[in-house]
């Protein structure tokens, strides 16, 4: 194969902060005391919190070394399925850190915050236009938070209709957050199986949809990377029974400029700005999960909403049917700034090119690897493709986990593994559009080389990874005797 990116090199051990701590050190420069000290009553005062005591260089080295143990998109290809690990443009960080944004106090008042309000207002317009919906709220703090927001709206909608419902239809390909979000609204999840070719059959939905069912939660493209072709019929079935259609838009990166979810029967959709719109994941967040809705659901959007009155932007919270507030202030503004900058940088053309190339990359990988790994659903895919370990497991007792860990030695972040649940031993590859053909070819070569190793040297895979700072960790012990603090 072409030279693999992964190799070994010098890293640094680094103890826990408190092992470095020495009484009397302080890495912060204390502001001057220009007013006299005022003591609170002893009964109220506690001991100083037992935080580590370090010099500034101690802190800098600690986190510099820690960072060097991490793998990010800037380190290498990160084809984590369903997570859209695309390049996070640095210029967007510059925007978010402008004093006018970073230093803005959320209670500065509308007059003093026109820039922030205008940005959020415009972003809501952009997202509505991209998804084909009537209105958007950028308040939800993450995808799952957007799901909850959307389900709360559906719940409020039925309540308003006069009769609450008890169930929600969720296909087996759904992300775990879907049923979890539905549960928070008190809905029982009715699990429906996707059809033989990985997408939902209208019949399956018809079979379960009834007047006590609030609606359906659909992900389109779904988590197999397949487009739900029966979207419209399914929506009709659900609507016919008075239900609503929730769309999980986490996979929007596949279809920008091609499909507008708002035009195909979906009533409410959430987006993951930290996926499709390039904001960094930050090792687990913060993200942002705006919700887009059609006319029917608009009255239920969370408050405050942003309105424009002769070029003045205002927060308004008086909508009578709103589900209420989802975030202490207005959502993850700093994340919104990045997504807004991204959209301005790409424009309509750039966004749809991004989707096209994301889909091209995924299909290219699918074609190149389908001989090597088993491909449960051999259909044209969208932004990601899902293989599994059928071949390797049956023939060499090598699992998806073994191959994933071995990929680390080759210098790649592994794909998403064991999700979606409908595919056992799933190996879910989402390259994203920002990976170049050479990079992808390197990845393909790596997977092929690993498949070879499964034949010739299975032990090498079972004991992988070999060159990472630590190797496989004992997760069972971690869960059995949890040690959650030092």
């Amino acid at each position: 194969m072409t030279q693999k990116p992964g190799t070994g090199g010098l890293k640094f051990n680094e103890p826990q902060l408190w092992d470095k701590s020495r009484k009397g050190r302080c890495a912060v420069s204390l502001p001057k005391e220009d007013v006299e000290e005022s003591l609170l009553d002893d009964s109220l005062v506690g001991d100083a919190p037992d935080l580590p005591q370090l010099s500034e260089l101690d802190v800098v080295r600690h986190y510099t070394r820690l960072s060097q143990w991490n793998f990010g998109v800037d380190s290498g290809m990160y084809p984590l399925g369903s997570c859209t690990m695309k390049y996070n443009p640095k210029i967007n960080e510059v925007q978010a850190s402008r004093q006018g944004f970073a230093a803005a106090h959320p209670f500065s008042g509308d007059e003093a915050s026109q820039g922030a309000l205008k940005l959020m207002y415009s972003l809501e317009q952009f997202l509505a236009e991209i998804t084909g919906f009537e209105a958007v709220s950028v308040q939800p703090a993450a995808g799952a938070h957007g799901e909850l927001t959307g389900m709360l709206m559906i719940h409020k909608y039925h309540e308003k209709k006069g009769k609450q419902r008890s169930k929600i239809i969720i296909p087996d390909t759904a992300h775990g957050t879907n049923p979890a979000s539905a549960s928070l609204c008190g809905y029982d999840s009715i699990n429906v199986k996707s059809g033989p070719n990985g997408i939902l059959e209208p019949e399956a939905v018809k079979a379960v949809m009834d007047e006590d069912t609030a609606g359906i939660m659909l992900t389109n493209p779904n988590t197999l990377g397949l487009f739900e072709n029966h979207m419209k019929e399914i929506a009709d079935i659900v609507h016919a029974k008075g239900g609503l259609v929730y769309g999980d838009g986490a996979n929007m990166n596949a279809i920008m400029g091609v499909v507008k979810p708002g035009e195909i029967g979906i009533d409410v959709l959430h987006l993951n700005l930290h996926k499709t719109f390039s904001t960094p994941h930050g090792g687990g967040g913060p993200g942002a999960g705006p919700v887009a809705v059609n006319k029917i659901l608009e009255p239920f959007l969370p408050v405050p909403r942003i309105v424009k009155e002769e070029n003045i932007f205002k927060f308004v919270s008086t909508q009578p049917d709103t589900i209420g507030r989802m975030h202490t202030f207005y959502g993850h503004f700093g994340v919104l700034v990045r997504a807004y900058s991204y959209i301005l940088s790409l424009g309509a053309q750039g966004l749809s090119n991004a989707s096209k190339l994301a889909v091209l990359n995924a299909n290219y990988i699918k074609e190149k690897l389908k001989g090597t790994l088993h491909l449960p659903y051999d259909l044209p895919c969208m932004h990601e493709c899902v293989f599994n370990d059928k071949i390797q497991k049956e023939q060499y007792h090598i699992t998806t986990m073994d191959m994933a860990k071995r990929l680390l030695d080759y210098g790649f972040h592994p794909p998403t593994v064991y999700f979606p649940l409908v595919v056992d031993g799933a190996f879910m590859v989402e390259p994203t559009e920002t990976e170049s053909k050479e990079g992808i070819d390197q990845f393909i070569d790596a997977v092929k080389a690993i498949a070879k190793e499964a034949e010739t040297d299975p032990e090498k895979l079972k004991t992988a990874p070999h060159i990472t700072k630590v190797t496989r960790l004992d997760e069972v012990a971690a869960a059995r005797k949890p040690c959650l603090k030092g």
Partner: protein
Amino acid sequence: MRYLPHTKEDIQSMLEVTGHKTLENLFDSIPQDLKSKNGINIPEAISEWDLNAHMEHLASDNIACRDYKCFIGAGSYDHYIPAIVPYLISRSEFMTAYTPYQPEISQGTLQGIYEFQTMVTHLLGMDIATASHYDGGTALAEAALISLRTHKTANTVAVSRLTHPSHRQIVDTYLRPTQFKVIEIPCTEDGITDLKALEAMEDLAGICVQSPNFLGNIEDLEKVRQIATDKKAMMVASFTEAMAYGLLKNPGSLGADIVAGEGQSLGISKSFGGPGLGLLAGTKKQMRNLPGRLIGKTTDVKGRPGYVLTLATREQHIRREKASSNICSNNGLCAMTAGIYMATVGKIGMRKIAQLNHNKAIYLKKTLIESGLTPAFDVPFFNEFVMKVPEGFDQMRRNLIEEQCIFAGLDLEPYYPELKGHYLFCATETVSKEDIDYLAKEVQS
């Protein structure tokens, strides 16, 4: 487009492999009637340079673009952020990583968050802290839900009226679709929660009290603990100003079962309210009830120490509809930021800065009294307090903002109609004596 690496040749050769003529053909499998006939109608792509100009223009429409003096807290606090904090957090290995699903190459995030969890337990005096939640309000809603889910009989949670108004609204939003109920604990003339009224309440699963409360006043959490015990209700302590626990007895030492609050004060910029940092901590007993991610220490097969995501069986990706919460992505990078901040200020700095906040607030209150404002309450506070203002204050305040970028307190009427003519003031280490004297002078005239 500089983010898209594909050359014409790349696209051609890749299409040959996938067996498509054009990029558009990649979408042939999608039924025509599902495709959009309408393009995306948004502004054309702009260059990095035009973006900079446009964004600076927008930013300058916020008063914050100028150095302004912030005498407002109310859930978002103006604290100094040491230069090393943004410098270290901007390292791309932290910034561009996903949730640490592959621990072998995520030890940086994992140890960093593990250390964060540990420092939070020390700050709050609790046994366990989660890897973060969205913000203080959503963390409180989760806490309320825990108390309700775990209680055998009761289905009501009592929330103090002096809890941050937004937090109370979020709790309402989260609970509305459930069979659970929220009742409000009223407050006294003194600007603290009316614990007598609380004592009179029946069948409570949880009691949520914020201290320092929204009016800045310090609540008697010890008493709350007693009442909670008597009523077999869970005690949930919340807060919006983490800095307070550099000085005050922490909620853990006062017996809280769960603590939920906002960690923005720990090195995170105000950023118009988000992203902040939801802090959620509990006693050992609550370990399996806590929502969201937890990092645990373990060893690798060679016996070397390492860290992993653990107790995932609580979470949605395993438990799905039976999960303790739907949370997936949290505010990890903000947690890492808070970790760096706490490591930087350390035990000494945290105490000194907290004391300094209190000193400045006391001085601010004193000077405001001298310049004609009346204190609304006479109870201990940390760095926020309420003053009754004279006629015309509001106009003067507006002028101060427009002409001098000074934010002189927050009008409480929208949140507490009964407090018409009252303002909530805050002083942190970032305001100097000079600033305070200047404000007082302005207020006087």
